């Protein structure tokens, strides 16, 4: 299996981007990623696109985007792994290069969610569980699915709504420093607690916004990295992935995500690292509860100890493992197909130690970073470990 590195990254402004269509939005990231890699579209033989669609007009986004970016003719694929779609697209391109089939590959994650009204978006996300057994008669929503975990978690471990709020406060603090974030505004625990209830116990500020955005990365084999004379290649050290049941009531408990535990153990093993080696992590905080469970699922702390980590500030810059110091899904936004790719972009910049302002740069000891990207409510999980 060949070594594969990230040699170029691009990232659009996240937000309500009704100034561009999905093609134009993708172009913004692709352009920067190719420029960073020193490549033109004609140098790219393989393109994987991560996008869920349904909330924008083009049913064949990979084709539309490849055309717009001058990539027509390349080997092209679109992948889906619910909210882990971006990581799955990286994974697909990774195996294509690692296998020896291609020397370079381009990954594009993009989502255009603001072309439909909010309730339609809520409907489309709510259907994406087990339609017949959870949506048809019971109208589950995406916040609702995670709220079921929040209730069980708080009941079991004694965590409070304030603990959940601390996650939002931390991530908004970093989002306020990130010019690409959807919401660049600090909030207080009180703001979170007093925001309206979306799916009890989750309130508006426990939830990520509905966001448009794109991100892109260029992958290259070790030989190609040398040929391109890349200064600071960021290597993909290991990817683990796993899945959970579609039907929530088939799960054994609601205090953690089995898929995340399994995916992370595979990734750690392949990369040959342990949780304590991670210098910085991006975790899937679509809801505040999700970030606390992620700490535990990833082994950053023991089961039931996640809320202590946030209380103690251990996941801030200067703490044990800085997490989501780009704002996370919570403040940076969660354009579904783009999210996993956006995590790679952020971690690549962290590993290159080029994040501005420096208060948002994690200190590097081992030059190892981790991305944890969950699809649905643990229906999928992809964990990717990067190393400079």
């Amino acid at each position, binding site marked *: 299996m060949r070594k594969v590195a990230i040699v170029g990254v691009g990232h659009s402004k996240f937000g*309500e981007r*009704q*100034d561009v269509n999905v093609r134009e939005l993708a172009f913004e990231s692709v352009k920067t990623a190719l420029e960073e890699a020193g490549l033109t579209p004609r140098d790219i033989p393989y393109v994987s696109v991560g996008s869920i669609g349904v909330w924008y*007009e083009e049913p064949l986004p990979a084709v539309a985007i490849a055309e717009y970016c001058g990539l027509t003719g390349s080997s092209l694929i679109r992948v889906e792994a619910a909210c882990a779609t971006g990581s799955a697209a990286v994974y697909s391109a990774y195996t294509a290069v690692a296998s020896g089939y291609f020397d370079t590959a381009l990954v594009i994650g993009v989502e255009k969610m*603001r*072309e439909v*009204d909010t*309730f*339609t978006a*809520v*409907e489309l996300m*709510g*259907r994406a569980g087990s339609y*017949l*057994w*959870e*949506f*048809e*008669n*019971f*109208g*589950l*929503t995406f*916040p*609702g699915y995670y*709220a*079921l*975990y*929040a*209730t*069980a978690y708080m*009941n079991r471990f004694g965590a409070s709504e304030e603990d959940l709020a601390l996650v939002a406060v931390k991530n908004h603090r970093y989002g306020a420093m990130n010019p690409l974030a959807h919401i660049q505004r600090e909030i207080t625990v009180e703001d979170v607690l007093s925001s*309206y*209830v*979306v*799916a*009890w*116990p*989750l309130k508006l500020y426990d939830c990520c916004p509905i966001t448009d955005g794109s991100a892109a990365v260029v992958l290259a084999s070790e030989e190609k990295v040398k040929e391109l004379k890349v200064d600071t290649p960021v290597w993909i050290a290991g990817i683990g992935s796993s899945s959970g049941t579609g*039907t*929530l*009531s*088939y*799960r054994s*408990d*609601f205090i953690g995500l089995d898929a995340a535990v399994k995916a992370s153990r595979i990734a750690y093993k392949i990369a040959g690292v342990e949780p304590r080696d991670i210098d910085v992590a991006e975790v899937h905080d679509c809801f505040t509860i999700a970030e606390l469970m992620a700490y535990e699922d990833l082994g950053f702390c023991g089961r039931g100890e996640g809320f202590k980590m946030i209380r103690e500030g251990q996941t801030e810059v200067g703490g044990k493992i800085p997490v989501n110091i780009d704002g996370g899904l919570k403040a940076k936004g969660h354009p579904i197909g783009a999210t996993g790719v956006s995590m790679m972009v952020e971690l690549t910049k962290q590993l290159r130690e080029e994040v501005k302002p420096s208060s948002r740069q994690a200190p590097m000891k081992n030059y190892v970073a981790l991305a944890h990207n969950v699809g649905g409510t643990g229906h999928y999980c992809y964990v990717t470990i990067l190393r400079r």
Partner: protein
Amino acid sequence: MSEMPTLPSRRLEISYNIPISRTKKFWDGLREGKIYGTKCRRCGKLYFPPVADCGECYSSEMDWVELSGEGEIVTFTHIIVRPTSFQDQQPYTVAIAQLKEGVKALAWLKDVKRKDIKVGMKVKLVPRVSEDGRVTYEFRPAEKREY
């Protein structure tokens, strides 16, 4: 929505005729006041919601088993912000309960005040025909009582 210039697309309208041939007894059972699960004749695994094939041992010989519906709440939520197709409903409470036969079920929890709902509360899963004629099922408190 944004005030940027946009072009409104053609409206897409979709509804599905979801096949239920292989689990029809479940839906018929609801009308008869019964909650059925399926049990694999080969490996004995019990399923709720019911399935027609066993993902455990790949047998397709399943027996229909009536469930007591008796269980305890494992977790719950009150859904306030609702999808388009539930806009005509009042906010609803969704609960997952562990049934005494060993399987879990997810359904709306009705006939109880929000503040009285607790993890561990005893409930009963019962069939119900909704106002708009849908055959479904819901949890109700096992007994009226004060907490």
